[in-house]
């Protein structure tokens, strides 16, 4: 049995004592948000960095972007962290994830880039979400390219002032202000992925760190912009 100090000096010491005694109950620190996809978590040094914008580019159809989202929901649900999804093409299907992986999700069903940007701006400033996923896939490329870069920088600054890890899913590199950019290069094949458990698919999903920029708290990443070609 652990020795019990007679007079815990502060609330912090009491909290530490409880964490030592009940490590399984302790809340994660919130520095990184685990996505549950091994390749992405490793590339980012432990998960989506809080207060940073991460761009996930799906290089083609069926490269796993929606499965990443499903794993992120499962992972944050296990940690009891709240998640918001700005669904740019209204494409999320609640039936593709287990029912118990939904209670922590706030789903915003969007029609168009204007609504998506407005909703994202509100959510990243909220302070109650561990992660905000913004899915811009399915929105016309012309509309996305017309978004001024200043809006992405505005989103970046709002993210840095907040607490959430922001994941933006795109079909092509778009977010100039993203701290990290990951690429999902390989499409699934029906024979290999058709009946495989989602967890195994996520474990085997390849992801390439395409860019790190600025002050992203990635372990071992340089503090300046670095472009890497996949």
């Amino acid at each position, binding site marked *: 049995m652990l020795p019990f100090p007679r007079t815990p000096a502060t609330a912090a010491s009491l909290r530490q004592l409880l964490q030592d005694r009940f490590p399984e109950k302790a809340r994660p620190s919130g520095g990184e948000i685990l996505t549950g996809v091994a390749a992405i978590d490793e590339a980012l040094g432990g998960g989506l960095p809080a207060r940073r914008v991460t761009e996930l580019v799906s290089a083609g159809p069926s490269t796993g972007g929606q499965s990443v989202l499903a794993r992120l929901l499962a992972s944050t649900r296990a940690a009891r962290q709240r998640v918001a999804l700005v669904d740019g093409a209204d494409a999320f299907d609640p039936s593709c994830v287990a029912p118990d992986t939904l209670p922590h999700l706030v*789903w915003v069903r969007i029609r168009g880039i204007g609504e998506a940007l407005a909703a994202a701006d*509100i959510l990243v400033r909220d302070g109650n979400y561990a992660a905000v996923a913004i899915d811009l896939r399915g929105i016309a490329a012309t509309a996305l390219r017309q978004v001024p870069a200043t809006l992405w920088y505005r989103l970046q600054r709002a993210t840095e002032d907040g607490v959430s890890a922001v994941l933006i899913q795109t079909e092509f590199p778009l977010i100039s202000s993203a701290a990290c950019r990951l690429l999902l290069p390989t499409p699934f094949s029906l*024979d290999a992925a058709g009946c495989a458990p989602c967890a195994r698919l996520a474990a085997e999903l390849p992801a390439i760190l395409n860019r790190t920029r600025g002050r992203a708290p990635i372990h071992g990443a340089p503090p300046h912009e670095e472009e890497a070609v996949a």
Partner: protein
Amino acid sequence: MSAPAVEMPRFAALRLPDFRLQAVRRSDPSLAGKPVALILGAGRTSMVAEASPEAGGLEPGCPAILAVARCPALILRERDVEAEVEAQRLLIAAAFTLSPRVEATEGGLCTIDLQGAASLATAAGLRAAGLALARSGLDLRAGLAPTPLLASYAALRTGPSAVLIVDDAPSFLAPLPLAFAAPSPACAALLARWGIATLGGLTALPKAGIAGRLGSVGVALWERAAGETTRPLRLVEPARTFAAEWRYEPPVETLDPLFFKLRRYAERLALELQGAGMVADALALTLLLENGAEHRREFRLPEPCGDPDPWMRILHAHLETVRTPARIASARLVASPARPPQKQDGLFDTGLTDPHAFWENLARLAAVVGEDRVGTPARLDTHRPDSFELRRPAETVPPVTEQAVHPECGPALRRFRPPWPVRVAFADERPSRLEGECLRGAVRTARGPWHLSGEWWRPEAWAVEFWHIEMEGGGLYQIGRTQDTWRVEGMLD
């Protein structure tokens, strides 16, 4: 001069100096920081009754014409009875936050019986009431004393936004001008001829001598000057309903004047609720339009609260999206009272960090995308594809109760809403080619079919056959057939 024999009960007086002018300035945002004078009378006989400090020290009684000559930028305003009633209600509401025994002594003056109240709590409460009224655009001055009369003198004597506590009545009264005791003009003139200008000067004279020379009027004046007069308070009842209604003359068509008054009345309702020990759990806003139509909306607050700021943010988020067919002639705001929430968070609870921000932002999101498009998804108890509902998000993320019996398999479906119409060619009873506006090409691999059906006992019975296919050019899709129509339901991603 004699001091009151006992210190208790103690009384507080809340005074709004230049009450009528303050009420006018509070109801009109355009007067902020400008020289304003309240005039009484009409035409050439109109005189300044009260003037703001920006007017450069205009004295009451100054003819309006002369006042304008001395201060060319002076804005002249007449009394606004509606604004005075509202300011008085706000003052009474602030008084009820200190004690349930409140007297509305006169316009701009409330007297409070503080018997039994802790002095520290009273001092803090007075400061809080002063701050609340200052936020509402009113300058409160307060006095604490053993009698109502002394308290009202203290509130008259003290400086802006300050509380004066009278512990030693004789030394407090002695230097006060004689006008504090409100002598009649004849008495004031006579006493001035005697060289008496202060309350101390009057009470230095024997009471019997004053009675002999000035009669009962003089005795009453002497007692008021000595602070001896005490009386029972004429108590008023606290608010039972929390509603405010106001008119716009002329009707308004922009949001700014609407928000301005909305905030003013919300502040009063919040104070009334606070005085009753309650908070609001819902708001009802009714806008009566010029054409007789009515726009009514009820807002259920995410968490009962008595702070007008979150109320205003919720109202703001809604009103920004409202377009009315005619101008707004009047408005009504009703707050539903509720007991304040009292709860202790669990040690390992994962509740909301900032509940107000969370619910306000949800309201803002609903204003942006529509109320039916924000929420926490929950599957419906059916196998029908794409069946779900959006529910109000939970305040606390519950712990994971059990693992799924059948883990999800295959890539997640990215659903196309609406599905893409497509023509499907078959070879060997399997899809071999798709022809559609959004997707076309040869099918490399196909798995299926799977059949789902339900509600066959109802007119809206449904049945669907679906396949998973991989296109030659890459990409996994789910296609489905309903009756004889094929659609691409989504991408397996």
